[in-house]
C-alpha cells in the first residue's frame, strides 16, 4: 500500500520544489534571456526580464567578430574524436573483462580507475613538453588523444558495468543452438550492448566537451575549443554582457539537451557503478 498523501501536502511539495528548481536554473535562464537583449538592456536597472525588444544581433556579432563556428568545430572534433577513439579501445577491454573475468580483472579495473585520480596539474609540464617535442601543441590531434586518455577509465568502467548485466545464459543458449563466436558477438551480444554503448558515448561526449584544464593549457589559437573561446571573454572591452550571453548559450545549449537525456547514466558513469 502506498502511503496516503493529502493533496494539500502534494501541492506544498510541488510549490517548494518548483521554486527551488527555478532558483537553481535561474543563472542559465538569465543567460539565455540576456543573449536576446541589446547591450544597454542587458545592464539596465531595474533589470528587465521578458519585456524587452528581442534581438538576434548578438549571435550575429559573436560569429562575425570571433568566428565562433571554428571554435564550435574544434569542440565537436575534440569531444567526438576522443569519444569514438575511446570506445574503439574500450569496448574489447570491457568486453573481455565482463565475459572472461579472471582473478586479476578486479585489480585491473581498480588500477584503471586510479589513473583517473592523478591530478592533471601534477603531470602538466611533461604533457606540455611532449606536445612541444612532437610539434602537436595547439593541435586538435593532441587534444583528441589527451581527452581520450583522460576519459578511457570511465569509458571502460561504464561499459563493463553494462556488459556485466547481459546474462550469461543467453550466450550459452546461443552456443547450444550452434552459434559460433562470430554469430555470438554479432547477433546476440551486440544488440544487447548497444544501449549501454550509446549511454557511454553520450556521457563521455559531455565530459570531453566541458573539460577545461587541458583545453585551456594545451591550446592557443588553432585548436582552441569553446571552453577556451569563452575564457577569452574574461578580459572584456566595453559592454559585453549580451554578447557573452549569446556565446555562452551557444556553447551550452547542445550539451544541456544531451545532458538531460543522460541523467541516469550520469550516476552510473561518475560513481563507477558504486551507486545505481
Amino acid at each position, binding site marked *: 500500500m502506498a502511503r496516503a498523501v493529502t493533496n494539500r501536502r502534494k501541492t506544498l511539495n510541488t510549490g517548494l520544489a518548483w521554486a527551488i528548481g527555478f532558483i537553481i536554473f535561474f543563472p542559465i535562464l538569465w543567460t539565455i534571456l540576456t543573449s536576446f537583449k541589446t547591450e544597454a538592456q542587458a545592464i539596465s536597472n531595474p533589470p528587465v526580464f521578458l519585456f524587452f525588444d528581442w534581438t538576434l544581433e548578438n549571435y550575429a556579432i559573436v560569429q562575425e567578430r570571433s568566428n565562433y563556428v571554428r571554435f564550435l568545430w574544434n569542440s565537436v572534433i575534440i569531444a567526438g574524436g576522443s569519444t569514438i577513439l575511446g570506445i574503439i579501445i574500450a569496448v574489447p577491454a570491457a568486453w573481455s573483462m565482463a565475459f572472461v573475468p579472471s582473478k586479476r580483472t578486479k585489480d585491473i579495473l581498480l588500477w584503471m580507475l586510479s589513473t583517473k585520480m592523478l*591530478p592533471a596539474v601534477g603531470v602538466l609540464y611533461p604533457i606540455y613538453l611532449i606536445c612541444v617535442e612532437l610539434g602537436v601543441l595547439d593541435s586538435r590531434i593532441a587534444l583528441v588523444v589527451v581527452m581520450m586518455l583522460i576519459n578511457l577509465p570511465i569509458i571502460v568502467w561504464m561499459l563493463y558495468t553494462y556488459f556485466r548485466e547481459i546474462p550469461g545464459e543467453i550466450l550459452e543458449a546461443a552456443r547450444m543452438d550452434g552459434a559460433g563466436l562470430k554469430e555470438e558477438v554479432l547477433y546476440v551480444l551486440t544488440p544487447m550492448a548497444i544501449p549501454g554503448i550509446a549511454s557511454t558515448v553520450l556521457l563521455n561526449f559531455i565530459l570531453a566537451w566541458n573539460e577545461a584544464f587541458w583545453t585551456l593549457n594545451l591550446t592557443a589559437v588553432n585548436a582552441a575549443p569553446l571552453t577556451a573561446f569563452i575564457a577569452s571573454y574574461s578580459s572584456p572591452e566595453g559592454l559585453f554582457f549580451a554578447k557573452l550571453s549569446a556565446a555562452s548559450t551557444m556553447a551550452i545549449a547542445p550539451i544541456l539537451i544531451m545532458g538531460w537525456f543522460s541523467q541516469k547514466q550520469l550516476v552510473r558513469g561518475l560513481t563507477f557503478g558504486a551507486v545505481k
Partner: protein
Amino acid sequence: MATKASRSAARLMMAPAVVLLLGWMLIPLILTLTFSFKKFLPLRGDQIESGWDWFTFFPSLDWVGFENYGRFIGSSSFWPAVQTTLVIVLGVLFITVVLGILLALLLDQPMWGQGVVRILVIAPFFVMPTVSALVWKNMFMDPVNGLFAHLWRFFGAEPIAWLSEASLPSIIMIVSWQWLPFATLILLTAIQSLDGEQLEAAEMDGAPPLKRFWFIILPHLSRAVTIVILIQTIFLLSVFAEIFVTTGGAFGTRTLTYLIFQRVLESQNVGLGSAGGVYAIILANIVAIFLMRIVGKNLDT
C-alpha cells in the same frame, strides 16, 4: 566456460587499453619525478635536448636533490595555498552534501511535474566551467551591473565587489552551484532504493519525521554520502577554470593546483612546479585510496 584460447584472446583485447593507460600514467609521472629533482628554468637558458636526453633522465639539467621540495613548502605562498584549497574543498563539500540531502528528500516526495524539476536542478552540471564562472562573475557578481548589485541597491545597501572583497565565498558559491546537481542526483538515486516498508513500519509505530530521517534514511544514505564526498574531493582538489577566468589566483584564491600551474607555465620554474606536482599527486592519492576501497568492495557483490 572460459577456455585457454578465450583467455589469451581476452588478454589481447584488453592490451591496448592497459598499455595506453600504463603509458599515460607512467611516462608523465616519471618525467615529473625527474624534473622535481632538477634545476629546470627554460626561460633562463636551461635546455633539454630531444632524443638521448629523454632516455637518460636529462643529464643536461643540474641535479639539486630535494631542494625543490624544500623550497616549494618553504615559499610564502605554500601554506596560504593549502589553506585556500582546504577552505574551497570543505566549503563546497559542506554546502553540496547538506543541500543535496535536503533537495533529494524533497524531490523524492510525491509532486506534480517531478521530471521537469529534476531537469531544472540537474542543469548546472552540464554547463562548462568557463561559462558558469564567467556568467556568475559578470552577470551576477559584477559590483556595478551585476544582478546582485541591483538587488543590494534595491534594498538600499552598498553593492559588494564579490570577487575581490569576498573572493573565497564567491568561488565556493560558483563551484557549489556546479556540483550541487551531482550530489543531489546521486543521493536521490540512493534514497529511491530505500525499502519503503521499513519507513512505513516506523511511521505506523509513530516515529516522527525527524527520527525517521535520523535513524532510517541517514544511515541508508551513508554510503552514497561517502561516495559523493570522495568523488567530489578528487575533482575539487583540481578546480582550475573557475579560478583562471574569475580572479586569476588573486585576492587569496590561489589554490595548490593554481600555484603549481603558475610555477610551471607562467614563471616556467619547472623543477619547483614539479615538486609541487608530486605533493599534489600524494594528496590526491590519499583520498583516492579510500574511494578505491569502497568501489572495490562493491565489485565483489
